[in-house]
C-alpha cells in the first residue's frame, strides 16, 4: 500500500492510528487560481527521479508505485516478491478511475504551442492500459486472467469483488487485486470544476462539510481460497465473507438522496456473508465529506442498520487523513478494515465536528481504540452511481 501517510502498509497504518493527516500543499502540478491548495501527495517514489519524470511522466510514477506495492504484498504473503506462484493460475485485477486517461502534458504542450500537425501523437499513448497490464504481468509472470475495472471511486472495491469471482469460478487460484490512482491535474481540475473539493480540512458527516481532498493511493490485496492458503502455509489476515454491488440508477455525479443504491450494495454483502446487520462490528465509510454523499450514505446506513444500532456502531472515515484516492480508495480502505481486524483496533476519524442534524448520534472515535472486532464492512461509492460493499471477518 502507498498513501500520503506512508509508503508501505505499516507506515500508513501507524500514522493513521496516531491521528496524523497526510494533506500538504500540492507540488506535483500547477494549480494557479485554485482556491484549494492542498492534497494528499505520496512521497516521491525515488528521490533520484528526474524532474521530468516527476511532473510529466506520471504514468511511469503510477506504475512504479504499483509494482512496489505488489512486491510488498507478495512479501507479506511470505512469497518471492518477484514472481507469483503457479503463473498460469495467477490473475491480476486492477481498479482505477483514471485507467488509460491520457495525461501527457508534453503532447499537449506541443499540440497547442506548435499546432496539431507538429505534435508527436505516439506520446499521447492513448492505448495505455494494455502495455501497463502487460508490463505488470511480465514483471510478476502472471499468465492467467488480467483486467482493469474503471467504475470511478468504487473501482478499488470492485477489483476485489472481481478477484473473488475468479476464485469462486475456479478461473484462478491466486489473485492480485490492485486499486490505484495517482494525483493528477486532470482529476484535480475536474473535481474542482464541479465544486467537490474543499479548501478547508475535511469534516465528514458534519454540518460544515464542504467537500473533499484528492490524494495518491495504491492498495494491493492478495486473494486465495482459504483451504489453498492454509495448505501453502500462508499467514491469513482476514476472510472475505461477503460482497455486494449495485447501481443507484439516479444521476451521473450525485448519489440517490435516499441512499437506496448504497443500501442495496450493503444488504447484498450481508446476504452473501449470511450475516445480520447487528453482527457487523465496524464500518469503514466512503465519507467524502461532500454535502450530498455523506447524507445519502447516512440514510443508506440507517436503512440497513437501523437508527438504534447505528448510534453505537463504530464508524471510521479515512479520507480526512488519507484524502480521496479515487480508484484506489476502495482497496486502501479495505486494507484498513483488514488491519483493524488484525490489530483489533479502530483508527480515529479526523474532522468530525457537529454532526448533521438528521444523523443524530454516531460513533466516531477521536483516538484509536481497541475493540472486539469479528466482522467489518467497507463501503465505496462512485460516479455513475456505482456502489460496492465488502465484508471481512476474522480468521
Amino acid at each position: 500500500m502507498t498513501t500520503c501517510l506512508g509508503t508501505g502498509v505499516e507506515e500508513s497504518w501507524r500514522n493513521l492510528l496516531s491521528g496524523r493527516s497526510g494533506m500538504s500543499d500540492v507540488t506535483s502540478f500547477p494549480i494557479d487560481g485554485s482556491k484549494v491548495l492542498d492534497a494528499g501527495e505520496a512521497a516521491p517514489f525515488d528521490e533520484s527521479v528526474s524532474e521530468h519524470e516527476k511532473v510529466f511522466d506520471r504514468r511511469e510514477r503510477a506504475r512504479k508505485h504499483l509494482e512496489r506495492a505488489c512486491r510488498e504484498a507478495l512479501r507479506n504473503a511470505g512469497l518471492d516478491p518477484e514472481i507469483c506462484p503457479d503463473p498460469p493460475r495467477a490473475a491480476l485485477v486492477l481498479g482505477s478511475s483514471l485507467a488509460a486517461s491520457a495525461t501527457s502534458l508534453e503532447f499537449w504542450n506541443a499540440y497547442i504551442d506548435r499546432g496539431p500537425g507538429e505534435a508527436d501523437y505516439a506520446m499521447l499513448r492513448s492505448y495505455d492500459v494494455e502495455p501497463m497490464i502487460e508490463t505488470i504481468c511480465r514483471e510478476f509472470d502472471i499468465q492467467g486472467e488480467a483486467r482493469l475495472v474503471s467504475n470511478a471511486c468504487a473501482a478499488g472495491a470492485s477489483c476485489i469483488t472481481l478477484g473473488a469471482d475468479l476464485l469462486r469460478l475456479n478461473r484462478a487460484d491466486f489473485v492480485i487485486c490492485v486499486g490505484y490512482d495517482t494525483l493528477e491535474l486532470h482529476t484535480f481540475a475536474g473535481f474542482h470544476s464541479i465544486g467537490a473539493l474543499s479548501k478547508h480540512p475535511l469534516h465528514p458527516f458534519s454540518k460544515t462539510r464542504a467537500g473533499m481532498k484528492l490524494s495518491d493511493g495504491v492498495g494491493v490485496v492478495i486473494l486465495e481460497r482459504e483451504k489453498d492458503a492454509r495448505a501453502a502455509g500462508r499467514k491469513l489476515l482476514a476472510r472475505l465473507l461477503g460482497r455486494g454491488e449495485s447501481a443507484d440508477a439516479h444521476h451521473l455525479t450525485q448519489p440517490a438522496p435516499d441512499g437506496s443504491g448504497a443500501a442495496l450494495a450493503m444488504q447484498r454483502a450481508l446476504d452473501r456473508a449470511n450475516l445480520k446487520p447487528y453482527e457487523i462490528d465496524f464500518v469503514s465509510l466512503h465519507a467524502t465529506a461532500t454535502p450530498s454523499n455523506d447524507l445519502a450514505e447516512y440514510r443508506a446506513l440507517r436503512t440497513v442498520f437501523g437508527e438504534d444500532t447505528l448510534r453505537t456502531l463504530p464508524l471510521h472515515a479515512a479520507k480526512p487523513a488519507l484524502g480521496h484516492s479515487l480508484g484506489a480508495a476502495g482497496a486502501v480502505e479495505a486494507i484498513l478494515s483488514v488491519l483493524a481486524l488484525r490489530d483489533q483496533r479502530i483508527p480515529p476519524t479526523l474532522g468530525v465536528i457537529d454532526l448533521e442534524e438528521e444523523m443524530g448520534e454516531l460513533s466516531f472515535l477521536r483516538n484509536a481504540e481497541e475493540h472486539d472486532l469479528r466482522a467489518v464492512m467497507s463501503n465505496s461509492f462512485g460516479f455513475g452511481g456505482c456502489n460496492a460493499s465488502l465484508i471481512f471477518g476474522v480468521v
Partner: protein
Amino acid sequence: MATAVITGIGIACPLGVGHEAFWSAFSSQCLDRDPPNHEIAPRSGDPEGVPAPRTGSVFLPEFQAERYADPRALRKVSDLTRLLTVASHLSLDDASFPEDRALRQETGVYFGTCFGSSAYHLEYHETLRREGVTGASALLFSHSVFNAPSGHVGQTYKLRGGNLTLVGGETIGLDAISDAADRVRAGIDRAALAGGADQYSPIVHASLHQSGLIGEHFAQAFDESPTAIAEGAATVLLEEADAARARHRTAYAEVAGSGRARAGKTGTGESALRRAIAAACDEAKINPSQLDLLICGASGGKTAPAQRVVLEALLSEAPDPVSITPKDRLGEGFAFTSAALLVIGALSFRYGVSGIGKPIPANRSALPSRVPSTVLIFSLNAGNGASAVVLRQPGPTDG
C-alpha cells in the same frame, strides 16, 4: 451453476443498426473479394491538421441515435454514451425485457471500452491545458469518466445490479460479456446487459496510427499491416436459461465457456491464446474437434501471426469447421469489434454461416450452408492478452 443465455442483441455501427440490418450488410460485404475502402469524411468540429489516416469505418456524428432510443436519454451525453444507449435499448427491446422493477433491480451492466468518451476527454484536456485549473469544464469532465456510459445506461433503464466498466485492449468487449455471463451463472445478477463500444476521434486515431496499432487502409486478417479503424457499439442481454424459458424467450445462444490468459514473463501471445481456448473448451465440456465455427479476431499487424498459427491448428483438429475473420470487414473497433465477434457468433445460430466469410485457408471450398452447433470466438490483444468464448446452440431447455 446456472446456464447463461443470450436473449437480446443490439448493435449500432456503420454497417447497420439493429442485428438484422447489421447481419444483412455484414454477410453481403463478406461476398466481396476485396476489403472495404471507407473514407472518413471531414467532420465539423474535428481539429485541423491532425495527421490521422483518412480510411475507417465511422458514422458519428451523423448517426441519428434519436431514431432508435428515447431522445430524452440521449441529451447532453457523449457520443460513446449515445452509442451504448442505442445498443442497450435494442438489446432490451429485442429480448422483450420486462419493466419488472424487481428483475431490473438485479440486472447488471458490464461494458468494455478501450478509449472511453475520447472526444470529450481530449477536449477536456485541451481546455485544461489552455485555461488552467479554473477553466476546466465540469460537463466535459463528468461525461468523460470511463464509466459514464454504463452509469447512464443503468440510470436510463433502471438497472441496479452490478455496474462495471472494463478498460483494456482489443478483447475488452468480449471480456465484458464473459464476465457478465459469469455473474449470471453464479447468481450474482439475474440478468446482465453487456458489451463493448469505442468511438472514433482524430487525435486517438493519429496516436494509434503512429504507435503502429492501426493502418492506413483496411487490411486482411493476417496481413503484416494492421487494418483501419472502426467505431460502434455491440451489446447482448444475458439471462439465466430457466428464467428466459419462463418468459417464453428463444435464446440466441448459450455462453458455454470462456477463458482468458496472458503471456506473462515466460509465455507468448500464442501460448496465451492456446490456454485461453483450452480453458473455454474445458468449461464448455467440449473437445476442440467439436467446434464447427471459428471466429478469429485477427486484424492484421503484430498480433496476427499468433492468431493465424492457432487458427490453423484448430482447423487441423476439427473435421469440417468454418472459420471467419470478421475484422477484415468491420475494421478494428477495439471494444466494439470484440463484442461484435460474439454477436456474429450468436447470430450464426439463427442465420447460418453461409456467405459470412471467406474460407481460410483460401483454397478450401465454398462455405457449407448450415447452422453451427458450437462456435468459438477468440482474439489476442497487443498486450498479449488472449480471450476466448464458446457459444453453444441453445438446447430445447434454454429458452
